[in-house]
């Protein structure tokens, strides 16, 4: 069996490279998700802001990032980000050396910014579905703004947002396939390299597909149990 040889571990096969690449995919996805969640805090605040300008900035962010192909967002960041950082460094500090940002960082940032736009929408949505009455009830027993936010709003927002954030995670995981164009050797790029070198594209793209399936399945199982935990106290709707 040819493919067993191709996918074997060690120097003669590509199995160990594929596994290493899977680790990279996981690392990038996690970093990107964290970056995205961080960004989405500001995104949500901006989109719920009373200030029109800030709200417009938030809306522009989510509309633009969600309306442009992920591939282009990644390309733009990959090629544009270094330039931008360098020109900022130059104008602020007069620093005119090449500043090199690690590929991993750029990749995580690029996917993170995409992921952040989707997370923003999810979290904003969750804020809006927390019943107003529960907030009023909190006020009516004398809770101040901080307590209302921290004791009533946040726990509920998390619960409502969790399924949506689970979807964003799956999206993020799959989007990392596109960062192959930055040269970072994650699953997709490794499959690309290996299939090019061995002229066995089916073997390697199929392996990649299976690796992604394993990742998405494992994480959706984890997400389900997280949801069950967060949904304590909420009656399941009858099917």
């Amino acid at each position, binding site marked *: 069996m040819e493919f067993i040889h191709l996918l074997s571990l060690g120097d003669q096969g590509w199995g160990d490279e594929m596994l290493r690449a899977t680790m990279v995919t996981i690392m990038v996805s996690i970093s990107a998700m964290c970056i995205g969640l961080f960004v989405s805090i500001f995104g949500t605040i901006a989109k719920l802001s009373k200030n029109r300008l800030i709200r417009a900035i938030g809306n522009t962010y989510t509309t633009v990032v969600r309306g442009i192909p992920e591939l282009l967002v990644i390309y733009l960041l990959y090629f544009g980000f270094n330039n931008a950082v360098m020109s900022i460094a130059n104008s602020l500090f007069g620093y005119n050396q090449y500043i090199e940002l690690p590929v991993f960082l750029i990749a995580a940032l690029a996917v993170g910014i995409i992921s952040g736009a989707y997370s923003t929408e999810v979290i904003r949505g969750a804020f809006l579905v927390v*019943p107003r*009455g*529960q907030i*009023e*009830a*909190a*006020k*009516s*027993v*004398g*809770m*101040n*703004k901080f*307590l209302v936010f921290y*004791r*009533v709003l946040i*726990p*509920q927002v998390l*619960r409502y947002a969790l399924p949506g954030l689970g979807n964003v995670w799956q999206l993020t995981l799959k989007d990392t396939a596109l960062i192959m164009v930055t040269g970072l050797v994650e699953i997709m790029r490794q499959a690309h390299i290996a299939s090019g070198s061995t002229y066995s594209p089916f073997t390697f793209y199929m392996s990649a597909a299976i690796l992604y399936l394993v990742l998405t399945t494992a994480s959706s199982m984890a997400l389900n149990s997280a949801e069950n935990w967060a949904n*304590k*106290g*909420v*009656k399941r709707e009858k099917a």
Partner: protein
Amino acid sequence: MITALKIKNLTKSFGSLDVIKGISLTANQGDVICIIGSSGSGKSTLLRCINLLETPDSGDVWVNEELISMTKNKAGDPCPADYKQVDRIRTKLAMVFQDFNLWTHMTVLQNVIESPIHVQKISKQNAIDRGYDLLKKVGINEKAEQYPSSLSGGQQQRVAIARALAVNPDILLFDEPTSSLDPELVGEVLRVMKSLAKEGRTMIVVTHEMGFAKEVASKVVFLHEGLIEEQGEAKEVFNSPKSERLKQFLASNLEG
């Protein structure tokens, strides 16, 4: 006798819609005031102005003879002068909502002890002990560990009453506390409310339950288009209404 609640010349409008057009009202300690009136007459708005869930446009509110001080914000709209005072006064003025508004992410007991622990900084053990007492009082102590979504509407409303009582309020505000309940569940909530009235609690109740009003109200206030059209003792108001509006209202309400 202390005046528990005093309202003077309260007005409130939403945009161009004048909802409360100047209402004054006084409740002495132990009074049960029932507010009746047709839909849209401003009953909920009046109640929500009292504990500042809505900010009144003008007029004054005293709770336990303490004036809630108001000021104007930059845009020239009225707003509370001191949010700390508002938070404090709100614990004196617990509100029970029509649709319960229990916190779904907490158990029944957690709902009841939340405010005593986090707002009034009572020790957790004390709060729990008091919480159980209150749940027993409204007859629902065996549900303490359950989540609100597994309770019936009447049970939820009784939890909401226990939660309101937990902050040891001087005045209870009820906004149609039985109108989102099935007829069969109404009874259990009204029973609890009657027992509170007997204890001598000061209560302001917006309600459609004329039977309840007749039985426990020290005063019935009939609101019409943002003004008090008629007020007086329950018997008087129901049996010999003076205003044409009230007569109409009572006729249409008893017929169903």
